[in-house]
């Protein structure tokens, strides 16, 4: 018999209970067309996409011990954008879809809760939505049914968890927190910088490193400078780098399958030059980014979820303590986060009709400012999501890139602009 409910995956379970007014766990993936979006076509495209990926046709329900997804016959309605990006999806009761589809002018936005999937799963859904939308716009596209059958909704963490693998052992010190004042509840400022990948690639090449490492180093350098200017004491700068495990382990899951890798630069040890920062980050990433080390991070996550004490706690207790535990043992250990979804590629037939992709990171009270990176065609889009109205980090970051010779175009939703 086909089941009409799904369990949340290991990461999704943690995210589900940490949802609060400031921590929505919702991230946004947007795609911009060359023409204005037709809402009727978009609604039809969404319905077709949900038929094709039926595992997304679910609502979030409360169980006694965990949240779960229940299949539903209802279809979410696409709506025009009104609220700030990445606004909360859930209120008490939580009988809502764990995602929403929005449109504005030429832009289609898919806002997803991390309970359901991660960036990769979201991109696959969005690509299909765009394909189905463009079909309705009259674009002639070949059938892709075969390719879709490859996706599943399994918990890949369980599949790749090995009993004999020990937990991730590293301990992290409390990280430096940016002195930012929170804006009003529900307000989320995004600032996107559009730049050419090739230019950035050439600069990274000068430092003999990859684009991701270069961006991380640049960001770490800025955070070190901000700490030096604003704080008398020194604390480690730790940047959270979510890593897509699909690049290391065989799986076709559309659920979450990523781990957070911490990259730490400790200014207490002395002064770092930019080259020192790049070297330190390269070593840190090399240390973590192999299947053996990543298995220890998977083991930690799975064991945490399988802990009998945690499992036996009623959901209302989990809802109550999870935000505190997440803040104390999760967010407190990081200064900020950079999430790179990589280069998005579309079929040639689709590419002609799609101008750009954007990725907004989920807002979080522990890391008031986070960065999301996505690349499409020849351009890269770096978006800072900020819960504060302070623009210091964005300003310093983009000015540094301009100094290196990168041409940047800034777009923001800030009200004063």
């Amino acid at each position, binding site marked *: 018999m086909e089941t009409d409910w799904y369990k949340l995956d290991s990461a999704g379970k943690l995210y589900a209970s940490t949802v609060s*007014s400031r921590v929505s766990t919702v991230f946004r993936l947007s795609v*911009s067309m060359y023409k204005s979006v037709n809402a009727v076509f978009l609604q039809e495209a969404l319905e077709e996409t949900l038929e094709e990926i039926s595992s997304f046709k679910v609502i979030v329900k409360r169980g006694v011990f965990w949240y779960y997804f229940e299949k539903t016959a209802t279809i979410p309605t696409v709506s*025009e*954008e*009104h*609220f*700030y*990006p990445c*606004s*909360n999806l859930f209120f008490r009761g939580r009988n809502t879809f764990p995602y929403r589809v929005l449109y*504005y*002018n*030429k*832009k289609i936005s898919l806002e997803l809760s991390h309970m359901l999937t991660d960036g990769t799963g979201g991109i696959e859904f969005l690509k299909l939505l765009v394909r189905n939308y463009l079909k309705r716009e009259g674009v002639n596209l070949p059938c892709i049914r075969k390719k879709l059958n490859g996706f599943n909704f399994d918990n890949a963490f369980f599949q790749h968890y090995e009993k004999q693998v020990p937990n991730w052992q590293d301990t992290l010190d409390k990280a430096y927190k940016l002195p930012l004042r929170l804006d*009003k*509840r*529900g*307000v989320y400022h995004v*600032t996107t*910088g559009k730049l050419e990948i090739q230019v950035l690639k050439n600069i990274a090449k000068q430092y003999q490193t990859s684009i991701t490492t270069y961006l991380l180093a640049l960001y770490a350098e800025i955070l070190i400078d901000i700490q030096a200017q604003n704080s008398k004491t020194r604390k480690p700068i730790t940047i959270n780098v979510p890593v897509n495990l699909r690049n290391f382990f065989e799986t076709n899951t559309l659920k979450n399958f990523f781990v957070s890798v911490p990259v730490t630069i400790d200014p207490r040890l002395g002064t770092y030059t930019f080259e020192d920062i790049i070297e330190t980050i390269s070593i840190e990433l090399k240390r973590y980014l192999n299947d053996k080390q990543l298995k220890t991070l998977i083991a930690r996550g799975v064991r945490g979820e399988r802990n009998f004490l945690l499992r036996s706690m009623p959901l209302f207790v989990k809802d109550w303590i999870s935000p505190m535990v997440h803040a104390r043992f999760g967010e407190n250990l990081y200064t900020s986060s950079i999430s790179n979804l990589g280069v998005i590629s579309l079929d040639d037939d689709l590419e002609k009709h799609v101008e750009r992709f954007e990725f907004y990171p989920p807002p979080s009270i522990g890391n008031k400012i986070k960065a999301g990176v996505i690349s499409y065609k020849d351009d890269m889009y770096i978006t800072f999501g900020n819960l504060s109205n302070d*623009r210091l980090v*964005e*300003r310093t970051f*983009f*000015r540094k890139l*301009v*100094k290196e010779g990168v*041409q*940047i*175009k*800034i*777009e*923001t*939703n*800030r*009200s*004063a*602009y």
Partner: protein
Amino acid sequence: MAYCPKCGVSVEKDQVPCPLCFTYIPKIVSDEELLDENGFPTYYSLYENLVNFFIRVVYRVLCVLMILGFLIPTLIDVILNKALTWSLYSNLSILITWSFLYVAFDYVKGKRDKIIVILITICVGLLGFDLINGYAGWSVETAFPLLVITLILIQINIAIFKRNRSWFRQSGYIIFSILLLLIGIELIVGRYSNTDNIVFHSVDELLPSTLLGAILLLISYRMPKKWVEKLKRKFHI
């Protein structure tokens, strides 16, 4: 394309401050180019609406309670005494409270307007209580002058604090202000009650408070730097 000379980045719009550094960007982009941009809609916070809705509900509930508080005592008073007697006091109190709540729930916008509404409410309240009591004149002769003295003293203290921002110095001024207020109260109340020999009870407090206030002001204005350093050295935390 519009461009910020300070940050070196291109921006979507001109004739607005740079989104990163607030430097004003002059008109460069044509209106057609602006129309071509995708841009952002005017965003609203999901919670702002909820909080406002909740505040409005609380205010309405309080309004209903106050209407009941207005009607029930009036009815009881009329039934028992066949006239409006003590209920006039409670009704006026409710009206004053209503006015304060109207300001507190942010229905009056602007700091200046809020202060004006509060002051008018206080004056009307004082005069009203006096009139209900059969007009003895205490509102005009006593309450209003005292209100004016208090407001002047508060205003002076705020002005001094804004200039100096030193709590040590301000403490001295606050002590002197309280002393002046006490003298004022005794003078005005004594005059109102037609006492021939006004006994200044505040004289008892005059010496210690003048001494303390003077010491505080003297220290803050006239203390030699050498002594300040010595004190800092001994008492630094």
